[in-house]
């Protein structure tokens, strides 16, 4: 409970920073921080394997990919971003507020009545592996195929086009 109380505001602050910061690299780094804190949250509730995998995939993979993409592409105009923030933020809040309201209402009203204090205190990795590779084999295979396709597809997408297939830029 205590780690959760400590971690939750930190996660929210980091996520807020990721949403608020005008400089893209700062936003991406704060996203990495938020994801790392979520990994710590998983560690603290006993899902260590999930936490470590989250750290490896999100911090080591996704956040780095995002940062890399930010470096390869040209950053937008920060001043313009800040200038049009009030309008876009107002519109965004108008859209987000009902969603958040519904979610919080559901949380406050729809909790399972007979909740255990500690349903599963610790994630058994061996059992998770057995579950994955015995009962969930089709899903695992599908994800494997998906990831292979993504690997090849992303490599083909991101490949530098040859000098002949260069399409004229439309601007």
């Amino acid at each position, binding site marked *: *409970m205590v780690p*959760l*109380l400590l971690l*939750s505001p930190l*996660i*929210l602050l980091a*996520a807020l920073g*990721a*949403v608020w910061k005008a400089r893209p690299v700062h936003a991406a780094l704060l*996203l990495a921080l938020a*994801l790392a804190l*979520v990994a710590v*949250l998983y560690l603290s509730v*006993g*899902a260590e394997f*999930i936490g470590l*995998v989250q750290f490896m*995939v*999100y911090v080591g*993979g*996704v956040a780095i990919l*995002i940062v*890399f*993409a930010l470096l*390869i*592409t*040209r950053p*937008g105009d920060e001043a313009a971003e800040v200038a049009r*923030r009030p309008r876009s*933020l107002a*519109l*965004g*809040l108008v*859209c987000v507020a009902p*969603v*958040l309201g519904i*979610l*919080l209402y559901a949380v*406050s009203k729809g909790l399972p009545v*007979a*909740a*255990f*204090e*500690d*349903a*599963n*205190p610790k*994630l058994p990795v061996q*059992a*998770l592996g057995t579950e*994955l590779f015995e009962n969930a084999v089709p899903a695992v295979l599908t*994800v494997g195929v*998906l*990831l292979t396709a*993504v690997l090849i597809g*992303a490599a083909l*997408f*991101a490949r530098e*086009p040859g000098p002949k297939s260069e399409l004229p830029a439309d*601007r």
Partner: protein
Amino acid sequence: MNPLPLLLTLSSLLFALGLLAVLTRRNAILILVGIELMLNAANINFIAFWRYGSVEFDLTGPLFVMFSIAIAAAEAAVGLAIILMVFRHTRSTDLNRLDSLHG
């Protein structure tokens, strides 16, 4: 006290923040940032219900999170590849400028 409401509130707020990012950002890569936040909010929910829910000796939550993480990685890779492709054509990642099919 059961920490479940706390975790659910956290994930709701995280989801709202992710949605806000998706709605307000113009840079396509930063919209991916918002999507990652929303995915993580969902993952927190899975873990919370697994840990503090009402079903004992069940691994559905962590299993879903595993798949979600794998698919999120795939999604980020493909999304960024597409963004790079778009950038190569338009020299910009601003989604408001990608209106050449606007008629």
